[in-house]
């Protein structure tokens, strides 16, 4: 009976997770390159000009996927943090750390492209409205997590403190998501709505979804690459890591 169940704890060991990510990483890298290439082609050459915003609306094809990833990565970090606190698995904190810089990068991209979209459409680079402010707080959460974990010398304590910070900050995610409904904001409502028909043409929607899938694959590729370096840095004294490096299989 129990032999049919996958032993998930097996993968919580860095020694088994390291080669697994090594095998998966090239697949995610090439998926990301391919999907983003197709996404860019659709964004610039297939998607029609918007009747209200002209060519300026094309910023949506990076802005929305980046904003989605900024929230999604934080939720995955929260998942790993909770797992790490409950089961005390070392790998959880390594995954949280591996995701944080990519999450911060996408949050910055969402804010940056938002400003470059806001200027021509709203007439301002920035407003202190609910959506923009809560997304800025998300950037500070990412930076705060990175600063906190790198400031604490003892790895175990750094991991625990980081996990608690991530879990406390999770309240910000529904605030970002629902901010356009809860408050009167300058930011437009959600482009894709499950309760009513989408406000985009089909080809625009596909371009955006393919870009989002590309960003998603990119996140996997970078997080796996980073976690492999983190594992090597932390396991440098263990014989399995030294053996892999010495045999050129790392």
């Amino acid at each position, binding site marked *: 009976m129990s032999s049919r169940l996958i032993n998930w704890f097996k993968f919580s060991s860095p020694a088994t997770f390291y080669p697994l990510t090594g095998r998966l990483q090239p697949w995610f890298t090439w998926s990301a390159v391919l999907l983003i290439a197709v996404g860019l082609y659709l964004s*610039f050459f297939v998607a029609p*000009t918007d009747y209200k915003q*002209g*060519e*300026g609306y*094309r*910023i949506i094809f*990076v*802005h929305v996927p*980046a904003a989605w990833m900024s929230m999604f990565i934080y939720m995955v970090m929260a998942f790993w943090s909770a797992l790490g606190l409950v089961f005390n698995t070392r790998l959880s904190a390594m995954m949280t750390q591996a995701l944080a*810089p*990519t999450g911060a*990068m996408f949050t*910055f*991209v969402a804010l*940056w*492209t938002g400003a*470059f*979209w806001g*200027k*021509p459409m709203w007439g301002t680079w920035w407003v202190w409205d609910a959506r923009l402010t809560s997304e800025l707080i998300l950037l500070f959460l990412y930076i705060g997590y990175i600063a906190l974990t790198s400031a604490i010398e003892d790895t175990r304590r750094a991991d625990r403190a980081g996990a608690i910070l991530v879990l406390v900050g999770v309240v910000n995610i529904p605030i970002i998501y629902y901010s356009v409904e809860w408050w009167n904001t300058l930011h437009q409502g959600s482009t894709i709505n499950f309760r009513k028909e989408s406000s985009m043409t089909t080809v625009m929607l596909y371009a955006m979804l393919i870009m989002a899938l590309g960003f998603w694959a*990119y996140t996997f*590729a*970078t997080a796996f*690459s*980073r976690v*492999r*370096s983190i594992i*090597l*840095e932390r396991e*440098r*004294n263990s014989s399995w*890591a*030294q053996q892999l*490096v*010495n045999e050129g299989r*790392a």
Partner: protein
Amino acid sequence: MSALQTFFEMGGYALYVWGSFGVTAVLMIAEPLMLRGRRKAALKRVARVARMSAAEVKQ
């Protein structure tokens, strides 16, 4: 005006469209390059630690 020129003008939104896509592209190329550097450094460090512990055993 050539088709290429029209494309780069983005209907007058060139600064905003290319400012968005350009910065995103720079960041999404820079991050994997930085990761490659980090990996090289990590591999070197493990190899060094392995050499040091091997030398200790011999003594």
